[in-house]
């Protein structure tokens, strides 16, 4: 897959016009992380409703098209879902959102930063600990 395929119209659109970008006034979950390898940064805020569902979710961040687009896409997908749903999310879900690009291991970390931030925040809220899988090959 060539980079022209990775950087499809859709990715660039999410990069330049990220959905759910911004901060919430009231939120129950606030999660932030950086990718120490490249400095990409994502913060997510979530408001939880009475049925433990993601009522509202927004993110801010800076970084490459892949990290920002994937975080944005993930917030869209998460909105309205029960918190428990977050536990089921796997990296393949993120890849699918991005159109299954052929990313090298370091770019995979960019793609998955948003998922890590989401999981860390929600797991913490649920009183659990999110231990990133030791998966260096992506």
């Amino acid at each position, binding site marked *: 897959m*060539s*980079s*022209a395929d*990775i*950087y499809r119209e859709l990715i*660039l659109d999410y990069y*330049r016009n990220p959905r759910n970008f911004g901060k919430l006034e009231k939120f129950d979950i606030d999660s932030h992380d950086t990718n120490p*390898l*490249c*400095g*990409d*940064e994502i913060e997510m805020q979530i408001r939880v409703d009475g049925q433990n569902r993601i009522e509202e979710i927004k993110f801010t961040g*800076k*970084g*490459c*098209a*892949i990290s920002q687009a994937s975080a944005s896409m993930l917030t869209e997908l998460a909105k309205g879902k029960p918190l428990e749903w977050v536990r089921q999310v796997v990296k393949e879900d993120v890849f699918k959102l991005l159109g299954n690009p052929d990313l*090298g291991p370091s*770019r995979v970390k*960019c793609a998955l930063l948003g998922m890590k931030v989401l999981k860390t925040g929600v797991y913490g809220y649920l009183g659990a600990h999110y231990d990133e899988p030791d998966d260096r090959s992506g």
Partner: protein
Amino acid sequence: MTGLLQTEAFDVEKVRADFPILKRKVHGKRLVYLDNAATTQKPQAVIDALVDYYSRYNSNVHRSVHTLGEEATAAYEASRERVAKFVGGEPREAVFVRGTTEATNLVRYAWGEKHIAKGDLLVSTRMEHHSNIVPWQLLARSRGATLKFVELTPDGHLDMGSLEELLRESPRLVAFTHCSNVLGTINDATAICAKAHAAGAVTVVDGAQSVPHFPVDLASIGADFYAFSGHKMLGPTGIGVLMGKKQLLQDMDPFEGGGEMIREVFDDHSTWNDVPYKFEAGTVNIADAIGLGAAVDYLTALGMDNVRKHEVRLLDYARDVLSGVKGLQVYGPEDSQQRSGLVAFNYADVHPHDLATILDEEGVAIRSGHHCAQLLMRCLDVPATSRASFHVYNSYDDIDALKQGIMKAGAIFKV
């Protein structure tokens, strides 16, 4: 290939033939390696030195009486002599370490923890690599000292007014880079050391981006400590050098304890070997120290003046070529004479990582990110930059390939 660079200095095509990795293809394209500030490639002579060592005279050093041990020791110490001479220093003042980072940390622990007291001032600068910031942060915290930074001018130099101001506060330590790994700025190390010494400070100079790229003469610079990495100057990974003034080295505590650095061990205390051995604990990285000697020989044969000449020409060419690219911003001083052979830049709203991915597809390897210089990134007000950095085997062709790759990224990102 059309535009291989022919300086009066040396024949780039011949140089390229010495580097086996340059024959390799990446994504079916010729490898255009422009990530030399991160680590350089190695000439066959360096690889051969390692193979020769392991195939013919591998042995532990210093404590051996047998022939292999004598040969390994002689080669290891001969390498120390060549490396020290290469930067105008004394072998006794050359400590082999893993790299620049270990060197500054060694100074922190062995000099800093002993000599820095509560309330002391330490000075670094905003253009430093983390390796010349974080050790001093940690030292400041553990000793109750303060760390302050020399500010930068808008055109990417150290602000001399800011330095003078800090020197009036009588810092104990002034740590600065001889050459910035992002801006390319070459600092006047001799002048800064003189000023810092006059203010009573000990100087730690980061030579990671200078020793590989232009002639360095410690005798005239006069730094108390000077650090550099072998892997950035055609040498193997895992080896570097801390040059330290003998008097200071002798007066320091040991860093790591055990092995080579010992004189005598008793139940409750131990005594130390002479410098520089006092700072080389355990089995040293023998093979790579010898490999670094071979790298120094290779650079010496080319001539560091020629290496510098070559890089300035590449720099001029790169700035010519890239100035035609709309939306491209280059950081650092304008004048090639004031900077080293690297170009850090940003291109429109294409994030450096995305640019690097697109360039990689064309066989072009650049670095993207904060380059371990986050304080500098904040000064530049960018999260990251792209960086193309040169060495002896780079040519005009490589820079053309860089430009073509950038143009492709522009097309994909519809810049």
